């Protein structure tokens, strides 16, 4: 268990350092930070001073080490475009994105597993066909169109729900939440559905496919030959084996929910990190871009560690460290 955790952790750190290197390279290759910060009109004198102060004359390994150190403290410098500290920008927008992403993930995973199991067990039924067809349409529907469609129905035509923004938020220290006010909760509904829908269809199809695969396994056949009740075979034997691969992929999907939030946030003008990032891309605002990249990588690593841990709980083959008795 301990060795396993260490290995996962080491892999996570490796990914973070790799991504950090990409983020760091962006600073070096994209534009000239000095020009970006001082503008075209600055004097030669000013430029040299800033270059020296930023340590841009040091050899790159030293610069990279400094970058890593700063990144670990959440410092990515100052946004070229907004002139504010990137760490402040991120802190301000983090709660909006996290609230949206976590709720979407819960919605997508919960309903996705339920519908997927149902479609696998009742393979040929009418409801299953409806579920599978809807899911295929869901995969082909771009997220932004789902968002626009929902806005059109629920905001423009029915006028039930707001079409943009977070509504009223309550501040809890540096965190802000929309969950405590009615307008905040109402504002969350459409973005959560939009962001969750794609993941929902994906998880549903995955669960169904995995479950059908497991249902063909020898041990399921053997369980049938032992006369075990169908319900027990499906919900005990098959489902538990299904969940192992599902946990991995659903976990990775959870990470991508954060990134997919880019689109949803743009559609709903949601004041989160994704919208910040799209803006940064349009203007090649490197500090924001690299900070966002590091943020996504960190989420990815954390999710991965959690998935590994869950694996451990679900699969006894890992728990005993692949120790297989020899001899007969």
């Amino acid at each position, binding site marked *: 268990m301990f060795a396993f955790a260490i290995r996962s952790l080491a892999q996570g750190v490796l*990914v973070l350092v790799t991504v950090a290197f990409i983020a760091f390279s962006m600073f070096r290759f*994209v534009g000239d930070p000095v020009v970006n910060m001082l503008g075209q009109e600055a004097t030669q004198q000013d430029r040299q001073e800033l270059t020296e102060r930023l340590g841009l004359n040091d050899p790159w390994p030293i610069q990279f080490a400094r970058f890593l150190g700063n990144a670990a403290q959440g410092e990515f410098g100052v946004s070229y475009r907004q002139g504010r500290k990137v760490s402040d920008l991120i802190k301000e927008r983090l709660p909006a994105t996290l609230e949206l992403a976590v709720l979407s993930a819960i919605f997508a995973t919960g309903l996705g597993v339920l519908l997927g199991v149902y479609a696998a067990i009742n393979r040929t039924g009418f409801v299953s066909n409806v579920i599978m067809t809807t899911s295929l349409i869901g*995969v*082909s529907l771009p997220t932004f169109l789902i968002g626009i469609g929902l806005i059109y129905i629920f905001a423009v035509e029915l006028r039930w729900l707001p079409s943009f923004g977070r509504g009223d938020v309550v501040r809890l220290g540096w965190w802000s939440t929309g969950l405590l006010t009615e307008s905040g909760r109402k504002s969350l509904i459409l973005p959560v559905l939009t962001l969750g829908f794609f993941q929902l269809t994906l998880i549903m199809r995955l669960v169904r496919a995995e479950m059908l695969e497991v249902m063909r396994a020898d041990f399921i056949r053997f369980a049938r030959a032992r006369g075990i009740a169908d319900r027990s075979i499906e919900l005990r034997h098959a489902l538990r084996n299904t969940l192992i691969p599902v946990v991995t992929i659903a976990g990775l999907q959870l990470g991508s929910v954060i990134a997919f939030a*880019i689109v949803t946030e743009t559609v709903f003008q949601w004041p989160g990190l994704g919208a910040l990032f799209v803006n940064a891309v*349009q203007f090649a605002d490197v500090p924001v871009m690299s900070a966002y990249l590091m943020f996504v990588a960190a989420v990815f690593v954390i999710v991965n560690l959690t998935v590994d841990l869950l694996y451990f709980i679900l699969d006894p083959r890992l728990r005993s460290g692949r120790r297989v008795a020899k001899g007969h």
Partner: protein
Amino acid sequence: MADMPSPATPDDGIDRRSAFARFLDSDLFFAFKSSPVAMVSFVVSVVMIGAALLAPLISTQNPFNPAELNLMEGMTKPGTANEFTGKSFIFGTDPQGRDMYSAVLYGTRVSLLVGAASVLFSATIGVFLGLMAGYLGGRTEAVIMRVADIQLSFPAILIALLVFGVARGIIPPAQQEGATLILLIVAIGLSNWAQYARTVRGSTLIEKGKEYVQAARVIGRSPLVIMVRHILPNVMGPVLVIATINLALAIIEEATLSFLGVGMPPTQPSLGTLIRIGQQFLFSGEWWILFFPAMTLVILALAINMLGDWLRDALNPRLQ
């Protein structure tokens, strides 16, 4: 189970029929004929691709040549006659008097172009790297597969955005608009190659162990020849399936980038750009400016997706 019958015809060893005749009798073609979903999505895909290719011939105007636009004809509802000129437009017009039907045709063309080119790009990279990884093994394999893992763990849209953002910073602003098309193809291509690499590596590992490859090695064929002539044809099935499904994904990815404002510019719009523009008119009631590009995108992506989905099932009978 060993007792399951094989559905193949009895063979005398040699099939003397033509390739086309064999195709018509193949399980694949039979599955195609007996699947209405496959046939409908195939026909829809072919019609839409054909319409996009023939856009200059079947459109009523070049919607991006300002000389052909008439401002008086702006904001005409679909199917109704314009109050000044009396002309009617099946998909309506936008505020500049641009015929949405023509705009959608040209937009589909751009979307398909970017989609197809990026699929070709990513498939080429992916197949090549997958072959290398599977055939050469060792450190080459380890490095390629680690990079593929990283690519797969980040959503394509994020990678494409990053590539795009970096390029924005490098390319001088004056040349940016002209380079957008290429940039999109590269950005989308670079965000989708890993799946090919993984699949091809897996198949290569299996093929590598087979006797015909061993034989080719023994008689001294070079690794490159073995990879291209012997292994490649055997891994093309899954690659075709991935490419079909990826075409739909690439079209959606391009539309998403354009929708976010980092894709095709309004002067040379794709379906995504048209949707971005049309969204502004949603609240004021001019629904058609958004609706027709959006429906075209959905139907196109859905048809190709269903075709790919069916192809995957048909080539993998276990899942049926």
